[in-house]
């Protein structure tokens, strides 16, 4: 089942790339395949029963390169299931959004289906080499999306994105090799490495390996000061590229924290925990402040991503502060961190799709060039307001479920986490400012004659925000998946 979910998009991508079916059929195929894949994922979620600690659901293990301990090993637990679902939802939304794409739609459909397999593969992978392969394939896929369908100075941004994140993945690989070498017997298998925790008791080697892994993940996430590739990449990316980049690909970094770094290197993680707490707090505040200074809607949303991912880093850092803190609080923090990954994916994905509409209509993201957009485009205005309030963590949306848990759990672990609380207010201020500048006041500038959202644009945005609302009001199902896995991560870090 899981193999099917991961590889169906790839098969479709190969077929689309090989057979010239025409633009209409290509767009239709893309939507059909993503919807089918999403249906499979939902089926998996419905049938999912929380596995025993350390075990996996939908597990499959095949030999691949046995001589160096590399296997094809995939499986699902409470950390990966929500992110797999998120991936399915976001890609389906992007497929619908692109139903009117005019620029090489067949190639784009093939590329995004390929990218979907890569993203799903990262979340399903239970082997470090498999993880790394999928991880790098996402970078390649996103590079081509930027270079082929971007705008502005997109080639330069694409190259910068590629070099920077590729550098990050190299650091990650070095860390993986370190883990492999330290394990006895040598293996790249994730559950085995978690069980073995190979570098316990060797502080120097552990710190070095964790440093390499953290560097790789920090670039991908991204956290301050490794975030500088993100704003240009977003600014010049096509709307669907931005949505996937923000909603899914940033999670590859944060997912790596809870899947690899924390459970495999608990000693080193606890030693580095304060650094992560500090970096998380700085990311929260710096991301929000810099976002407030932006005059370009897409850059602004990009920087709010830095802020939102900062909460995740803060929470996983706080989870490493084992001594003198309560395991319940640390569990709440990690649960909040994983919830934040899902929540940010839904909400920021929707916001980037909305931003894409501005570019589609007027070739501009400049906040100052618009004003009073609510008059010609009420649907756009309503969804943007809802998206902004969801993004600022309004209760009733998923962001609150995530951020409330992150902040309370982190404060429960260390009172220093209080420093991150003003981030909530800063995000509120900057999003309201942007919304007001775009939507309210007299209709002027580029807003005049602005065409409101079409059905293919409304549907994915409204769908993503509706999911954020559902998670925000009845989070029990989602938290029922995440909590056992988060608790087990906290236990593993504490050993």
């Amino acid at each position, binding site marked *: 089942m899981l193999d099917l979910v991961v590889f169906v998009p790839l098969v479709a991508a190969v077929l689309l790339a090989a057979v010239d079916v025409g633009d209409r059929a290509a767009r239709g195929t893309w939507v059909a395949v993503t919807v089918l894949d999403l249906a499979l994922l939902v089926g998996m979620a419905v049938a999912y029963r929380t596995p025993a600690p350390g075990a996996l659901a939908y597990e499959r293990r095949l030999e691949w390169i046995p001589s*160096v301990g590399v296997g094809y090993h995939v499986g699902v637990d409470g950390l990966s299931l929500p992110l797999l679902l998120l991936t399915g939802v976001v890609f389906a939304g992007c497929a619908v959004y692109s139903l009117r794409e005019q620029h090489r739609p067949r190639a784009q459909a093939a590329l995004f289906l390929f990218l979907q397999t890569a993203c799903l593969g990262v979340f399903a992978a239970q082997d470090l080499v498999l993880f790394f392969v999928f991880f790098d394939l996402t970078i390649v896929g996103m*590079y081509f999306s930027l*270079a082929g369908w971007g705008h502005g100075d997109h*080639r*330069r941004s694409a*190259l*910068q994105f*590629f*070099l920077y994140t*590729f550098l990050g993945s*190299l650091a990650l690989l070095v860390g993986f*090799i370190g883990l492999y*070498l330290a394990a006895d017997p040598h293996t790249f298998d994730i559950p085995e490495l978690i069980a073995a925790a190979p570098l316990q008791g060797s502080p120097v080697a552990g710190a070095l390996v964790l440093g390499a892994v953290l560097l790789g993940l920090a670039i991908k996430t991204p956290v301050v*000061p490794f975030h*500088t*590739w993100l*704003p240009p990449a977003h600014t010049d990316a096509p709307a669907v590229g931005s949505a996937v980049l923000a909603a899914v690909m940033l999670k590859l970094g944060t997912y790596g924290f809870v899947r690899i770094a924390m459970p495999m290197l608990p000693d080193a993680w606890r030693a580095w925990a304060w650094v992560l707490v500090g970096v998380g707090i700085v990311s929260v505040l710096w991301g929000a402040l*810099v976002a*407030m*200074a932006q005059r370009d809607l897409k850059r602004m949303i990009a920087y709010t991503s830095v802020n939102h991912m900062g909460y995740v880093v803060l929470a996983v850092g706080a989870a490493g502060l084992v001594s003198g*803190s*309560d395991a319940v*609080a640390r569990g*709440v923090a990690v649960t909040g961190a994983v919830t934040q990954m899902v929540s940010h994916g839904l909400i920021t994905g929707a916001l980037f799709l909305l931003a894409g509409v501005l570019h589609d209509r007027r070739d501009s993201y400049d906040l100052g060039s618009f004003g009073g957009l609510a*008059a010609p485009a009420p*649907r756009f205005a309503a969804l943007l307001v809802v998206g902004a*309030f969801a993004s600022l963590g*309004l*209760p*009733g949306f998923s962001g*609150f*479920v995530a951020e*409330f848990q992150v*902040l*309370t*759990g*982190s*404060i*429960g*672990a260390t*009172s220093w986490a*209080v420093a991150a*609380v003003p981030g*909530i*207010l800063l995000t*509120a*201020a900057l999003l*309201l*400012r942007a919304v*007001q500048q775009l939507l*309210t*006041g*007299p209709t002027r500038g580029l807003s005049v004659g602005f065409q409101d959202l079409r059905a293919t644009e409304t549907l994915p945005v409204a769908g993503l925000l509706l999911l954020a609302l559902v998670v925000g009001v*009845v*989070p*029990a199902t989602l*938290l*029922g998946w995440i*909590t056992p896995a988060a*608790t087990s991560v906290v236990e593993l870090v504490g050993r």
Partner: protein
Amino acid sequence: MSGVLLAALVALPLVAGALLCLVAVGTAGVLRAAPWLAVGTAALTAAAAVAASAAATRPMLSWAFLPTVPGGEVRLLVDDLSGPVLVTVTVVALLVLLAAALDGEHRPTRFWGLMLLFLGSVTLTVTAATLPGLLLGWEIMGATSYALIGLRWRDPERVRGGQTAFLTTRAADLGLYLTGGAALAGGSGWSLERLPDATGPWVHLAAAGVLVAALGKAAQLPFSGWLSGAMQGPSPVSALLHSAAMVAMGGYLLLRTSPLLAATGWAGPAAAWAGALTTVALGAVAVAQTDLKQLLAASTAAQLGFVVLAAGLSATTAGTDQLIAHAATKAALFLAAGAWLTALGSKRLAVLRGAARRFPLLGGLATIGLLALAGAPPLALWASKGAVLAAAREDSTALWAVGLVGAALSAAYASTALRVLWSQAAPEPGGDEDPGTGTVPRALLLPIGVLGLGAVGLGALAVDDAGPGELVLGGILALGVLAVVLRRPAPAPSWAVHWLGLPRAGELLGAGTVRLADWSGRGDDALQHGVLGGVAGVRGLARGVAALDDAGVAGAVDRVAADTTRAAAGSTRLDDAGPGAAVRAVTRGARGLGVLARRPQTGLTHQYYVQVAVVLAAALLLVLVVR
């Protein structure tokens, strides 16, 4: 059964409101039935509230929210405290919506949807027994108030008023996040009634968080400034948000958590003093205003000061009485102000001179409301203020004295308004906000009249709690001040005209944050350029090294091939060419970079990828072999 009532109480207005908002977006026009759908929903909600608070068993309802923590669920509860407040809020909401439906103004469908969403968030806030449930209602209330104050979004000034309200109250709301963290760290869980069980220093942080959040919502010092800007909203919005609901919820939260305040030893007195000082400071602000809605707004903060004072003293009943009496009184007054605003096109006092004479029925109702506000016997606020002051006197004479000054000031601003409304002087021409219609719809008098009845009769609730001393003293004080001010206007303290500079302070704080943000933005740009420069530098260096390497290897091959004499000459040449070539290569690399930066898409990326992959594979192999 009781669970169904509670579910209806919360879900009915929320769902109906959300649907109306959806319709508003879909049709982009006016749905004719919207006012009556809203009034009908509010009526059902009020009926559910009455039934729920009269139910023999305490209605309770909960759903799983954040299941790992005790008290992490959303638990709703109607008890002795929430019952009366619930009935008050829903009935006032019904009357306000009825007035809005009858006042003849055209309102967008969105207005009705947002008012219902707001009502639902208030019923959620009132009934919440856990912190997550409270925050759910509390912050949706703030967000809908933003949209309602900025309802006329084409006017940037109004939207800014909503923004100030939302951001100020949200700044205070951060306190509740701290409370959540403290409760978790202190092991008490998130049930509101268990918060006092938090251990060690955490109980203090929890109480401080609640206190700050409540003072912000209740527009108490030092957060009062936002209430001034909030008057940009339509009058029905003020009548609901700034009388019975949003602002009052700040006071209500303190009443609900008074055991927590008491458990700390300091938070109770702090709340009491904040409330008492607000009654005086904002009372003075009210006296100094020249705009009827601004006067009423300042008086809202001042009157709620008595609720906060009571909550700080754990005098829950007195505080509830004051909250309820004020809700009815102030809603009637805001509706009257709104009716005059429509009729005369202004809310400036200079325009309203003699308005009560021109519109005697409305004038009569407003007079009842203002007399109640003044604390004149036997009206409702006279009794409830007496109850609060009685509690204050038991605790501390200083607090009691400050409260008495606040009571005198409330009589002063009420009589200032009365003086203007019944004045015989010629009014200034109105129409500075809207062209006045010149009439007040007769039907509007019904909801205002019902609220006026409340302002008269609700004192019966409180009379038992007030000592006879306070009642007599308060009555004499109110009537005395009324008599004096009606003869000679109260001196308007000039320092209070601009709300003690609080809105300005808020603006400065906002501007400072924006400056900090701009500075951070520049810093981040520099960081970005630094990284770009770093990348460019590394690549230039790599090219230089590569060129040097080429030259070196080529030279070596030459050396091997040639004889010793030519080798000598070759090495001389190499000596020359090596560093020279390197320097040239570096220069060329740097120059090429400029070109590359503009046109990087030359296939070099793939080469780079391959190179790195090869190096990597080599490194991997090396490590494996060495190991």
